[in-house]
């Protein structure tokens, strides 16, 4: 047998052994790297929609909202929107951000003082702007357009709105 063939077989065998160890390591370790049990259910709540609990202030959901606010600001500063439309959308995003932060608090994360401030501001805003077009979701309190049938955040039926 040629030396090259022997080397190939040795390296190939080593690769095969490494692969078996790699695949079996999860079982040998006795515990999964996945820290939370996997859910078989396609939904986590009664609405049939998974509810995403944020994990911190680097939370992508929050980043998305602030990103959207920045875009809104930019479009407003470029004169592409009526002030009324801007205020309406800005308000909706702000309420969404506060809701995410409150979810963080409920999950044991986040800063309680900050969330409390948001709650107070939202309540004050609701008093000052009773005619705003968004309405809080009865399930998760996210700001939802009055024209929406379902909450985009948690999927709850908005027909049950107060």
């Amino acid at each position, binding site marked *: 047998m040629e030396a*090259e*063939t022997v*080397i*190939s*077989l040795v*390296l*190939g065998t080593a*690769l*095969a052994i*490494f*692969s078996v160890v790699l*695949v079996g*390591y*999860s*079982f040998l*370790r006795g515990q*999964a*790297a*996945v820290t939370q049990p*996997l*859910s*078989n259910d*396609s*939904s986590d709540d009664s609405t*049939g929609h*998974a509810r*995403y609990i944020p*994990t911190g*202030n*680097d939370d992508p959901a929050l*980043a*998305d909202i*602030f990103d959207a*606010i*920045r*875009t*809104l*600001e*930019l*479009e*407003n500063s*470029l*004169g*592409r*929107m*009526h002030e009324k*439309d801007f205020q309406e*959308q*800005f308000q909706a995003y702000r309420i969404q951000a506060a809701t995410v932060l409150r979810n963080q608090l409920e999950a044991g994360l986040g*800063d309680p003082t*900050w969330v409390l*401030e948001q709650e*107070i*501001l939202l309540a004050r805003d609701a008093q000052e702007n009773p005619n705003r077009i968004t309405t809080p979701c009865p399930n998760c309190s996210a700001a939802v*357009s009055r*024209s*929406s049938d*379902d909450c*985009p955040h948690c*999927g709850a039926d908005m027909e049950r709105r107060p």
Partner: protein
Amino acid sequence: MADLGAISLWIALALAAYSTIGSVAGKIRTSPALVESAQSAMYGAALALLVATFSLVIGFISRDFEIAYVAAHSDLAMPSQFTWVAFYAGNEGSLLFIAVTLAIMASLAVWRAPEKLRDALPYTTAVLMLTLTFFLAVTSVMANPFDKLPFTPADGEGINPLLTHFGMFFHPPALMAGLISITIPLAFATGSLLAGKSGDEWVDVGRVWGIISWVLLASGLLLGSWWAYTILGWGGFWFWDPVENAAFMPWLALTAFIHSIMVQKRRGMFRMWNIVLINVAFGLALYGMFMNRGGSVPSVHSFGASALGWIFLMFLAIGVIVPFAIFIWRYPLLKSARNLDSMLSREAAFLVNNLLFLAIAFVTLWGTVYPLISRLFNNEEITVSRPFYDQVNGPLMLALVFLMGVGPLIPWRKANLDSLRRSLLPPAIGGLATVAVLAALGLHKNYALIAFGLAAFVTSGILMEWYRGARSRHRSSGENYAAAFLHLIWANRPRYGGYIVHLSVVMVTLGIVGASFFSIQKDVVLNPGESVSISDYELVYLGSVETPKGNRTEFASTVQIFRGGDLLETIQTKRAFYPSFNMASTNAAIRSTPVEDLYIVPSENMPDGSVGFRILVNPLIWWMWVAGPVMVIGTVIALWPQTVPVPARAPSPGRVATRPTAA
């Protein structure tokens, strides 16, 4: 190293198959250990495929002609730098390249997947690994690059001469990587659906991988056009060849997808539509691979033809039916969070843009499969050529360029007529002024006038956006305009990266219009010392030198270029004949400027020293090749990770009442 390569390939196949089954079983049986093991198997498959790849590369470097694939695609005379090209010169190597690319990208995508996709990740892994298993099974069983010859020949057959071009280092790998990487956004979308998610969780990762696939395909298409322009010797860059179309169609669907996914990310709309688009893009990518590997339609890419067609056709059928079946099953989950507020909105513009892209893709698909259909029903193969595509796709593409100018200037949700007029008036004036100036200068080709007007419209709109944004920053922060502009781009990378990509599309438009409507061509036979005039150039043919080289005979012809009596340049065109392939290849001599290309290619070298030349003046085509790097730069800016500053807490309630800063 052939044995090591073969062993690695089989190990990779076993790992990919295990990963597919393990991911699904682990999810169904709620076994995190099994899911993690399956994920590890995916990383292991990538490693094994890297070993197989290195084995084949070493086989080429050492010219191990015992390996049938190495003997078929290289010889002792092949310059060593073409080892990389020889690697994917045939089906076996191409399939290995596709497999290793998919394995690496899949591993990166799963490794970097966000936490919110954790529930769906086993299904995503299963889709990715199922696709990999298919490619590895075909490679191992039907097109193994490590198969050995019964004897070792003294020399190989050599690399296809048409592949010995700089563009070949990037064009085929970019296209193959672009096509196969569409699997990744598809896998995330399908994984989310299988896990019962409502549809928005996969959007960010789907957008990023969709853009990566898009830019790979775009780069591959542009490099392929450049290769055709410089080496095929016919002076054009796009032939509407079936295999070109096969890469163009998924690119169209992906372009629609990466716009449409922004609507879902921003507004929670188009959930169903985005799943449909990524499914269509994946189906078209599989169709592209079927065309490339199956060789069912005559193509200039005949080096890819093989008997693998039927198996790719089966996989194409499965790849189309299964994702759509899952989509229909999960249809009730995909209801949009919002409805379209107004037809005067960016969402509506994106929707129309999507429909136009799909219309062009459908027209191209129809033209591509028509030879097959005509053969099937009439027993006569009718090939659809360029006039069909130009007449049908041309107006649709112009409409797309128009929308490219309008879309970014309309706000999300709804625009009022006043703001729309304010936004659109300056670019519209720019476009109309361009048309007026060009018409006054004597340009009377309507299509070209419209195209130049639209190009000016889009460019004016983008420049106006940049100016307004920079002015806004300048006023609010006091930065000078240059700093304000750079900070503006950096602070809004997806948006302004997109604008740069749009500019590159304008450049491509200029190149296509210039070369399609204003190209001048002359075919002449010149004896040494004779001259010919074209446009305002005068060319003098000085003579040819014949040089026998290892595997070819090379003819170098020298031509002087004069304009207005002044010598501009002395250039050399080359034509080589490869007896073993009974094939000639040409290297066009191109004097390229932003205004026009002077393109000279020798079509035939006569025994008496005369040479048949094809000479073209191609206006504005330079912009098309410059567009490639601009497009890549724009994409990199758009994809560069952006950390949006999120305030951890407000120091006082008053801060919340203040708007977040736009910067």
